[in-house]
């Protein structure tokens, strides 16, 4: 499958959230702002020779979890946790709302985590990329009002050194 040099933008993305159920419950985030962002971090230990870089060296540091964030327009906050006939909402999924019957992707006793799958469709329709973040836990969820729309802003980490990127 050939690659294409066509640039991608927020219109081409699709974010899906999955829990640890078998089969997983999933939620396609339809109203995200298209501002998903993640940062690979690489920790390096600099060993300088009596203050000198020229004769010093580097060593691998500890692994660093991947930071990620996104925001979405706020519609209904709770659905399934209020009425099982209602669809799962973004707020419920990110908050592991009791009653929504969500299962963590990590082992019992660990922090609640989810899987985030971000697919970027090739505008030319040839080579789509799927970026998978595993063991994503929440650090903050900020709810804010706005003149045009209210927003839910997620910030968290994937407990892995980086997402898995595959061609789909």
């Amino acid at each position, binding site marked *: 499958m050939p690659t294409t040099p066509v640039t991608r933008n927020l219109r081409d993305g699709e974010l899906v959230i999955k829990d640890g159920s078998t089969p997983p419950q999933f939620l396609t985030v339809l*109203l*995200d702002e298209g501002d998903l962002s993640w940062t690979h971090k690489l920790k390096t230990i600099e060993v300088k020779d009596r203050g000198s870089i020229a004769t010093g060296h580097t060593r691998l540091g500890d692994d660093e979890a991947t930071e990620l964030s996104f925001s979405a327009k706020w519609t209904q906050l709770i659905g399934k946790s209020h009425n099982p006939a209602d669809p799962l909402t973004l707020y419920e999924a990110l908050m592991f709302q009791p009653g929504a019957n969500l299962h963590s992707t990590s082992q019992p006793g660990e922090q609640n985590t989810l899987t985030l799958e971000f697919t970027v469709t090739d505008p030319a329709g040839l080579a789509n990329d799927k970026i998978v973040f595993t063991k994503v836990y929440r650090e903050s969820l900020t709810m804010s009002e706005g003149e045009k729309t209210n927003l839910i802003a997620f910030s968290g980490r994937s407990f892995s050194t980086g997402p898995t990127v595959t061609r789909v």
Partner: protein
Amino acid sequence: MLTPTDLLEAILQHNRLALPTGTTLLKSGDAADSSLSFVWLEYWVDRLGSPVARRVAPHQTDLSITVNCFGRPPTTPSQVQTLAETVCQQLTRLRLPIQQDTVTVGLLTLNEPEMRDLSRPATQKSAGLRQWSISVRGTLHPQ
């Protein structure tokens, strides 16, 4: 697919109940002889656009609506202004279900309108004519 005419028709129906009986209501495309009326309203959808969004997102439409409110003697300037203010109140933060063939296909939400007095009664061409323009932005949400 909803057309501007569908939206205007829904707004006209909503507004008609609050306006004085006999007020002429026109929407873009309607033909009327203004010399037969002393007061009339013209409704326009003058902007339609889609906000930037994911391809998978439901298709919302941002829009602007303008209502021009005209009156000429014997209608007094204050009557024209009162009529414009009535329209303004009707449009303020309006939530209006839009139907096609008795099926609700969308929800129109409007923000806060802005009124402007465009009257130029002293000019020869529009002698005595009063005009208020009301413009409001909104969003059509699919359902």
